[in-house]
């Protein structure tokens, strides 16, 4: 598995897309800091981008890589290698290189602007950690979709739909249910609904770190009480880990049964 991981990883590191991705974040970081020169403000702007773009790129990239390396996968399948290590190796190769591009692309400009001397270090760290988690989660989900669909168009369709669902439609339904059920106490409901969606969870985690919770009134107090404690942070990181592990586990199980 490590060998395949290494191969995929190096293959991707040499590919144009990783560089484009890396350069995109690099440019984004520098432009953001150049424009508002304030680290904590830049972290907020960056959050909007990370929460939306990182899942999208993870999804598209994951599914593209799977379909592109299909022939190579088939070649590997013919060799005496465990199936799970083939797929997991590829998956970690993609997710790893994407995360690395993200971390380096954003880390370099922020470090250059004196991140380590400012108080925003932890907020920024959390931002990168959630970004990395989102990459892992959405790449794993896209691998699952790709594995289930031989048809590339269909696979792409489902993948984009999945992103749309979690990043946009989920919030719409969430909002709708909040408005429809406004006569009931909704704090625990909204807490649960936030935990169930990795995109919402990441957004809330970062927002609460940036002390926007006071804006949120009573609900914010409930949220702050939950996420503000170590327990809450552990639970939400646990939810993110669960979101990562479940698709990976399903990937490992599924690839063993899949008929190629």
């Amino acid at each position, binding site marked *: 598995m490590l060998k395949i991981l290494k191969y995929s990883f190096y293959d991707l590191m040499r590919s144009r897309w990783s560089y484009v991705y890396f350069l995109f974040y690099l440019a984004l970081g520098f432009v953001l800091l150049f424009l508002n020169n304030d680290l904590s*403000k830049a972290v907020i702007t960056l959050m909007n981008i990370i929460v939306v773009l990182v899942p999208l790129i993870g999804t598209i990239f994951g599914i593209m890589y799977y379909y592109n390396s299909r022939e190579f996968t088939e070649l590997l399948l013919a060799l005496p290698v465990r199936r799970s290590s083939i797929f997991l190796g590829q998956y970690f190769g993609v997710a790893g290189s994407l995360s690395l591009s993200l971390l380096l692309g954003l880390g370099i400009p922020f470090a250059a602007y004196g991140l380590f001397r400012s108080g925003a270090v932890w907020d920024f760290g959390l931002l990168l950690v959630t970004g990395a988690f989102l990459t892992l989660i959405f790449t794993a989900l896209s691998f699952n979709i790709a594995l289930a669909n031989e048809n590339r168009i269909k696979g792409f369709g489902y993948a984009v739909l999945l992103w749309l669902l979690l990043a946009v439609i989920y919030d719409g339904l969430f909002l709708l249910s909040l408005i429809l059920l*406004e006569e009931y106490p909704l704090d625990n409901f*909204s807490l649960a609904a936030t935990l169930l969606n990795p995109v*919402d969870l990441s957004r809330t985690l970062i927002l609460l770190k940036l002390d926007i919770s006071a804006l949120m009134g009573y*609900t914010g107090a409930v949220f702050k009480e939950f996420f503000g404690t170590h327990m809450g942070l552990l639970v939400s990181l646990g939810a993110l880990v669960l979101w990562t592990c479940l698709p990976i586990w399903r990937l490992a199980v599924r690839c063993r049964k899949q008929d190629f």
Partner: protein
Amino acid sequence: MHALRLTACIFGMLFFWTSRASTWVVCPDCELSSIREAIQRAAPHDTLLIKAGTYLEYDIRIDKPLTLLGQDRPVIDGQKKGEIVTILADSVTLEGLSIRHVGVSYTTDYAAIRVVKRKHFRIRDIDMEDLFFGIYLEKAQQGEVTGNRIRGQAREEYNSGNGIQLWYCKDVQVGENEVSGMRDGIYLEFSDRIRIQNNRSMNNLRYGLHFMFSNDDSYTGNRFESNGAGVAVMFSKNIKMQGNTFRKNWGTASFGLLLKEINDAEISGNTFEENTVGISIEGSNRIEYLRNDFAGNGWAIKVRGACYANTFRANNFLNNSFDLAYNSKVNDNRFEQNYWSNYTGYDLDRDGVGDVPYRPVKLFSYIVNRTPETIVLLRSLFMELIDFSEKVSPVFTPDNLQDERPLMKRVHDRG
């Protein structure tokens, strides 16, 4: 002959002065070691020079016009037994003292210094610590309270007092004081024509400054920071609020400035920075908001209803999560030529005024007003999308609520 008469005259005057206004020295080791005794012995218009040391005294009643001057900051320690200084005469001056340990009571409002129904008092440069009430002016007129430092350690609202309290006062000047750790920093009730200038009111439990039923007052150049809630102006008329700074009043029920039932006021040149709500307005009419800065607040302005004929002109709205929240579909307030950092319009004719009107109320802020729990969706992509669609074609927000001529650059001239 002439010289002799002059000398006699000078001597006469000297004699007259010394007999009229003598100075009494009070110090712990002197013959006069008690302030209370010195007051009893002194004649009206005398000066008491109080030297450094600690005086364990309380219930000091000044019942004749005297000047109490502290030298090297003497300490009057009330040992928590009750009120410390009560002024019961006109033209009393207190300066350079340090007063501590006022008694706490649930039935009487003990104060470090109280003025009762008198005029022309001057309370200057007094340090106050460990207090119940700081300076309590009761039906007092035409005096000044300047340059004092009041530090309390209030924990709960029910057993703490206010820093400077004015009750039925007229024409008092309150300037350059520092108040912290009290219930309300400065509190005015039924007090008219009070001028509050250049004070700093911080870390108070409730409000930095609090008006109730007080008219024709002004407060300028003050700084209100990290209070439970910044400034509350309630049931008052003709208040001028200029050049103040409201900062970091941050908390779930906090605000920089609360206006409730306020008519005909002027709010200009103030800075509202990092408050949960910059200004919360309720039932307030004919108020002019000019050249204020609203930066980094949760809500810059929250209009809660029954507000008519207010004008917002030449203000800067900079990076607030919400510029404006409105809970009705009717609008009778005018927004003119403000700078909005969230404005995305263009200025083709280059006259510095945007060609497209700006709508400060977002759909999200409307939804949050209806269902507060929805705030958890703050900054989600879905919300940005529906905000955008509402911006393009307003359905829920009042359609005449807009700045027809939004500025392209922020207002710098804030004079």
